[in-house]
């Protein structure tokens, strides 16, 4: 089917909506995360059960993307199409499926776990009173079948594109995006409208719209969720962007590690071509636009836009100096706009509902919402989309349900390896681009890693630096050698070899790297060190002055011993991988410190808390 005009789109959408559907919908979360947790088995059981009970007309089974409830995967959601009532099941097993289907929509099935709080699924694109989340980016993710363009169309899909092509000039589009105050969701927060404006101002000719889907921030997976759950939203936005800046080609640069996202994107592109949302003379407007997919190959630095462009060109993903900016000289030396997935996912909603509406969410300087990937030592791991300006406490405690196992909150890292850690004293700070920067962190792509009392902050800083070290392209001196030296110094500290001078040198070097590295990756690499030094200097000092790791995490600085609580059960002896535990049955055991590799298995294994870390 080809949609020849906006009017036809409207008609088609209405037609789709009026199609008879079964009264109840069963959404099965088939994102990477869900599949890894075993959703495929659950889905198989559902399908078998539906066939067995001949429920085809009563129940519509829909495979959707990530619902954001990662902590409870596999998840199922049952929705009553008429009343809107829903039941969300978590940790579903194939065995529970018959019971769930029997229970229906009114009462949860016995012996199952339901997600009671209205954690998920607030009203579309708005945060109602008392609701913590608002879904713009994730408006369709986990709700619609990502492999069906019809479902997308039914839910206002491509309506924004139709509006743009029929009622707006390219400059109007840029004006709306500028007025909305939308800022790049991938890292720096550069105003999207301004980026588009620069590219639009370049002389007409070949231009490119690029989507950065090379999400590589460890612990951030919102882009994957959108690509797997709502691929058309990205395609629609890129086409709108193409119209605005005068580009004819869109390129999605995606991680090769995201096979499911690639599959769904390819499928979506094929559908969009078939319906005429991509290709020549889109909806009769005379505007031509096409999108192709390019693959990354495992290089975090390719998230930097110049490096990304080089990678698309088949080169080593090394960043180059700006200016020239990609908007002037980008892919194949042509003007190019690079935005990330989450940024694009906001575009269609802004066009449909207007800049003013967008600004009702979020803060003055950072309008709209932000998706955070909540992970680490938080009870409920998952994706949360919240209006900017929400506090960390709300996100971690109200949405994330606090710290796992009742431990003490220590810090949260935002901005991934480029960001910094935030301590309890800033838990009530409303967060947006500026406030995070002011406290030495950054928004980044939205990873939010919660740390508890067991985490050594020096070790955490070392972990992030190791990441940057691995991912540094090696082009400029401060990043190539400087980060290596920083890492070595942190290693000295965690090994108990550091001195006060080491800490001073760390500070000097951090300042220079920030000031001189070529690209964002290098410039922000010292952030985790600087922010832990600022907030947890006492931990650094404990390492260098007392050779002590306060969190009991640095293995070189701890020892495992067996206390008199030991009953001589022999479990630890049995489990020890290096056989360094000895002792007669029913007698107190001993650890040979010289042979111990400090793997901690005995500590975790002991049921009597007899193994102690000192």
């Amino acid at each position, binding site marked *: 089917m080809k949609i020849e005009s906006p009017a036809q789109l409207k008609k088609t959408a209405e037609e789709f909506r009026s199609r008879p559907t079964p009264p109840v919908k069963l959404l099965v979360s088939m994102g990477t995360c869900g599949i890894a947790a075993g959703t495929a088995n659950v889905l198989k059981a559902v399908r078998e059960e539906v066939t067995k009970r001949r429920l085809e007309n009563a129940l519509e089974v829909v495979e959707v993307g990530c619902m954001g409830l990662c902590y409870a995967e596999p998840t199922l959601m049952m929705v009553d199409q008429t009343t809107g009532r829903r039941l969300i099941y978590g940790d579903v097993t194939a065995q529970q499926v018959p019971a769930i289907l029997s229970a229906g929509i009114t009462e949860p099935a016995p012996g199952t776990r339901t997600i009671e709080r209205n954690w998920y699924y607030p009203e579309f694109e708005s945060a109602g009173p008392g609701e913590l989340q608002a879904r713009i980016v994730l408006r369709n993710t986990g709700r619609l079948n990502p492999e069906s363009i019809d479902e997308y169309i039914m839910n206002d899909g491509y309506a924004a594109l139709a509006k743009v092509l029929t009622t707006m000039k390219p400059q109007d589009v840029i004006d709306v995006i500028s007025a909305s105050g939308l800022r790049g969701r991938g890292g720096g927060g550069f105003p999207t409208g301004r980026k588009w404006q620069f590219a639009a101002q370049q002389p007409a000719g070949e231009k490119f719209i690029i989507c950065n889907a090379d999400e590589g921030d460890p612990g951030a*997976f919102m882009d994957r969720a959108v690509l797997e759950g709502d691929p058309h939203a990205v395609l629609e936005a890129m086409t709108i962007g193409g119209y605005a800046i005068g580009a004819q080609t869109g390129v999605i640069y995606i991680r090769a590690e995201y096979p499911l996202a690639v599959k769904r994107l390819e499928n979506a592109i094929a559908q969009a071509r078939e319906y005429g949302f991509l290709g020549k003379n889109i909806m009769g407007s005379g505007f031509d636009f096409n999108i192709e997919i390019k693959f990354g190959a495992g*290089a975090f630095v390719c998230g930097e836009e110049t490096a990304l462009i080089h990678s698309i060109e088949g080169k*080593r993903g090394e960043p180059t100096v700006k200016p020239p900016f990609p908007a002037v000289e980008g892919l194949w030396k042509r003007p190019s706009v690079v935005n990330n997935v989450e940024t694009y996912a906001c575009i269609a909603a802004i066009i449909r509902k207007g800049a003013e509406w967008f600004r009702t969410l979020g803060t003055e300087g950072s309008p709209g919402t932000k998706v955070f990937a909540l992970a680490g030592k938080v009870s409920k791991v998952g994706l949360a989309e919240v209006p900017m300006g929400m506090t960390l406490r709300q996100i971690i405690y109200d949405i994330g349900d606090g710290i796992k196992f009742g431990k003490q909150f220590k810090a949260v890292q935002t901005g991934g390896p480029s960001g910094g850690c935030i301590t309890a004293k800033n838990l009530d700070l409303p967060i947006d681009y500026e406030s995070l920067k002011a406290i030495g962190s950054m928004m980044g792509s939205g990873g939010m890693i919660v740390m508890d009392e067991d985490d050594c902050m020096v070790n955490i800083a070392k972990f992030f630096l190791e990441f940057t070290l691995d991912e540094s392209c090696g082009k400029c001196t401060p990043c190539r050698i400087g980060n290596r030296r920083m890492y070595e110094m942190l290693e000295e500290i965690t090994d108990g070899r550091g001195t006060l001078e080491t800490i001073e040198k760390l500070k000097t070097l951090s300042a220079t790297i920030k000031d001189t590295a070529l690209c964002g990756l290098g410039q922000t690499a010292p952030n985790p060190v600087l922010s832990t030094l600022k907030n947890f200097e006492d931990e650094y000092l404990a390492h260098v002055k007392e050779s002590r790791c306060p969190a009991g995490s640095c293995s070189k600085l701890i020892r495992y011993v067996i206390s008199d609580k030991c009953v001589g059960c022999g479990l630890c002896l049995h489990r020890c991988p290096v056989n360094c535990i000895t002792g007669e049955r029913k007698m107190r055991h001993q650890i040979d410190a010289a042979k111990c590799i400090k793997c*901690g298995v005995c500590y975790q294994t002991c049921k009597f808390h007899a193994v102690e870390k000192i």
Partner: protein
Amino acid sequence: MSDQCCCCSDCGAMPPELKRKFDELDRYIAELHPDDNPDRSRGFLIQILHRAQGLFGYLPEDVQKFVAARLKLSPAEVYGVISFYSYFTDKPVGRYKINVCTGTACFVKGASKVLDEFKRRLNIKEGETTEDGKFFLGALRCVGACSLAPVVMVNDKVYGNMTAEKVADILKECAE
């Protein structure tokens, strides 16, 4: 195979299985029409390397030279790219590719202990393959399954909530 093959001077002597792979790679490249726009043909490099690695399991020198010749690049440029991206390897890897996720969520939940245990049991370092060619051990960045942290991938299968103790089970499962 096209006459542009540069990797060896006698394709006739190539084992049929290898020749089939080269032929397939050749067809894949031909379908991209790299000669239509020679200035931009290198834009196909990374996807071709993905395809080649899928076919051959890794990117041996002959394959690199073949791809270089087809895209009119120097072998050094192709090698420069391969060695830049962690996804590509020019060494054969084990039948079971064990990758421990070392993303942040997995890290704070003890991925390094899991990795250490694999190293100890397999007696190899990260990025190496056991002598019998059976196991490759690697670390990879966030696979996006943070809720199951720490996570280990063996080929395409994901193992969640890993502990050092479960390492032996996984290895045993592979051995069966």
